[in-house]
């Protein structure tokens, strides 16, 4: 009942003309910056922070949150159409989304991304509303050993992301892990693999590598083809563009998977949307009845990660609003904003400021509906982009990639890195190395290393700290994931041998 009256109060707050306007402004702005590679929600919110002093805090928070989850909707657009991830949490969407677009199903992929985002985003808000305080307490049980096990579990997904050869996938992943180790080491303040370059002290931003190996590598690879790639037919009419009922049925589990995984990972202060999207993709492929379709345009491969990165928003707000703990860059700015407006984010925040909390929750329901209504018609517009001939398309992709990287780093050195990773992506394509494991290693490498070293610092070097209950279970699943394919292979060989003998 308390939830019901709270929500009612929240809708009264969120549905005032000014707050509704701010919600619309937030989600539209979020979609736009989500579509643009490079510029992310955290930079946008930081830039708008001074403006928000002139607003009433609840309305300002509604707008900033709208940018935060709106960007997750927009992030998939360029991933699907151009193979350029719009946000780091949409990197994994490139894998199947772009393949779908190449098969003329861009509309279905874009539509599914919006629908999955809506379902999981709404799930995230419901969960935030219902289970936030107890879940926040439970998330505190998660510490370094648990994170380490989670990252190991994530890394075993290399088995699932591997194409023909597991060896090649593992090699690519190791390169990713190596790149993740670059920069100033937190624990000893020494520099690793910086080659004396000032610009490498902060490590290499994951989005530069992802844009390089995915987008630039793809463009170089395609330019080489003697015959220009066949023009992709774009069906006419919005109805024919959107996902079919069959697509929806296929994605039933992906919606659930994305919602739950995204939300739970979001609650953990040490993970984040990118890791959530990778994990849900891995789970989706792991349980799928036709895993061979993944990587070649499986629609579940779009629905699961796009759902996960949206459910993550609701999850990430749990520790922020119930414990005063920011788990990511964007929530850290939201926390700073709350302090600047004179609020006191902490364990008593919801109790002290029910109007802001419930107003925010209600606005997120409204915002998700708005985003669905906004994004579905946009599918028709964006899908036309594929009619652009390749001599115009490739320069466009290159331009968007360069602007995206420059807007994050404003440095020529990083554009050089982008070119380097583009060539690496091209070489990997030529030599038939999968690129997704490299990106996976890069995403998980840094948190995994930190978690392991933190665990061992806590236990004074005793490895048994990794055998606490939660890590044991996670590591057990990881081991199983690694062993099963080997067993299958062994079995296949055995069957062959028996056949031959027979």
């Amino acid at each position: 009942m308390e939830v019901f009256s709270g929500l009612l109060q929240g809708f009264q707050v969120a549905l005032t003309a000014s707050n509704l306007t701010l919600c619309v402004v937030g989600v539209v702005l979020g979609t736009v910056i989500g579509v643009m590679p490079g510029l992310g929600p955290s930079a946008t919110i930081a830039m708008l922070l001074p403006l928000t002093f002139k607003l009433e805090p609840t309305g300002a928070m509604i707008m900033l949150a709208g940018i935060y989850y709106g960007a997750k909707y927009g992030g998939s657009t360029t991933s699907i159409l151009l193979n350029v991830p719009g946000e780091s949490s949409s990197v994994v969407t490139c894998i199947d989304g772009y393949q779908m677009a190449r098969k003329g199903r861009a509309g279905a992929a874009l539509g599914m991304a919006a629908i999955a985002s809506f379902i999981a985003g709404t799930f995230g808000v419901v969960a935030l509303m219902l289970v936030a305080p107890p879940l926040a307490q439970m998330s505190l049980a998660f510490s370094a050993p648990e994170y380490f096990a989670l990252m190991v579990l994530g890394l075993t997904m290399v088995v699932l992301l591997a194409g023909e050869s597991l060896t090649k996938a593992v090699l690519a992943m190791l390169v990713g892990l190596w790149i993740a180790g670059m920069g100033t080491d937190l624990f000893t303040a020494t520099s690793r693999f910086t080659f004396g370059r000032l610009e490498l002290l902060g490590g290499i931003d994951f989005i530069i590598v992802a844009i390089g190996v995915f987008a630039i590598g793809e463009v170089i690879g395609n330019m080489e083809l003697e015959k220009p790639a066949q023009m992709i037919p774009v069906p006419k009419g919005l109805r024919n563009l959107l996902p079919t009922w069959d697509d929806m049925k296929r994605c039933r589990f992906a919606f659930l998977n994305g919602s739950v995984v995204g939300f739970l990972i979001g609650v953990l202060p040490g993970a984040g949307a990118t890791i959530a999207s990778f994990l849900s993709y891995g789970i989706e492929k792991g349980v799928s009845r036709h895993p061979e379709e993944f990587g070649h345009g499986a629609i579940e491969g779009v629905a699961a990660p796009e759902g996960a990165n949206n459910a993550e928003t609701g999850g990430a707000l749990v520790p922020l609003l119930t414990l005063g703990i920011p788990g990511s860059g964007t929530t850290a700015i939201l926390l700073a904003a709350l302090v600047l407006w004179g609020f006191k984010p902490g364990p008593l925040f919801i109790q002290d400021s029910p109007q802001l909390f419930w107003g925010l929750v209600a606005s997120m329901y409204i915002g998700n509906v708005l985003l669905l209504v906004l994004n579905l018609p946009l599918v028709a517009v964006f899908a036309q982009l594929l009619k652009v001939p390749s001599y115009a398309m490739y320069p466009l992709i290159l331009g968007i990639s360069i602007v995206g990287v420059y807007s994050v780093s404003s440095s020529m050195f990083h554009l050089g890195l982008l070119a380097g990773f583009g060539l690496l992506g091209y070489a990997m394509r030529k030599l038939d190395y999968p690129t997704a494991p490299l990106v996976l290693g890069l995403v998980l490498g840094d948190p995994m290393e930190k978690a392991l070293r933190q665990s061992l610092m806590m236990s004074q070097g005793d490895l048994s700290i990794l055998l606490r209950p939660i890590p044991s279970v996670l590591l057990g699943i990881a081991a199983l994931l690694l062993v099963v394919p080997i067993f299958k292979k062994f079995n296949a060989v055995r069957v062959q041998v028996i056949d031959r003998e027979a």
Partner: protein
Amino acid sequence: MQRARNIVAATLAAIAVATALPALAQWTPTKPVEVIVHTGPGGGSDVLARAIVTMMEKEKLVPVRMQVINKPGGNGAVAAAALSEKGNDSHTLGLVTSVWIANALTTAEAKVTVHDLKPIAQLMLEPAVFAVKADSPYKTLKEFVDAAKAKPGALKQSGGSVTSRDNIVRQQLQHATGAKWAYVSFPGGGERLAALLGGHVDIMVIEPQEAGEQVRAGKLRVLAQLSEKRLPGYPDAPTLKEAGFDIQPTPQVRGVVAPPAMPADAAAYWEGRFARLRETPSWKKYVADNQLEEHFLPGEQFRASIQEISKQLREQFVLAGIKVVR
């Protein structure tokens, strides 16, 4: 005679006007000003810079627009290089913290450091408190230190990088008492606090504003504060000296610097603006809301302050076995 006197007076007046002229034609900014910070959007310096920009605008202290430029990477090394490249530009400023001073000591790649830049003004000190979980057995810092002494290495503190203030004060306490406890680095403040609230570590150094809400909710207990005088928000928590530890924690400063060759008139202008800023109600409210310690120093004194902190940090780093490169 009268006329002669008038002529003298007029001449004197003319001379006075002539000498006063340069002062009247004081330098003022003519185009948008960039404020370079070393953190990404949402980091400590970034938020402070955006707050300063807003306050300068609101109090109408600067006639042009100011914008924040993020130059993250290398704990200030990238931002210091960016400021240095501006040479004699009068329309660029930078916000520095103690991190820049520590980084200058440990990072070989940094060709330009905070010492090569022109100090404009020290703005504030950032106080901090030692906190434990509310259900922790340790009621005072002495009890914690004694427990650490009884079981060397068994107790744990969560904090940031090994060169951060959190670790330096731990080193000082360990050195003064002979106790030993572990230090676990976490990249984000949220993770440090989560580790303490989850019972994975035993103690942490935390900002007073952040700790205040946890204390009010009955989640944390503050054992001691790292400032010289008791903070208004913590009238009952002893300072380190009052708690019986004769150590001088290295202050955590925040201040403003400029490109190395900024002309003197422009530097004086900016120093004056920040001196005015601290008199404004907006600034006073900001300092109070965030429980900061106002500590203004003009340019040359800020340079001395940086050098003093650098000296203290070098001693501590050597004691802690951290490699010092310059």
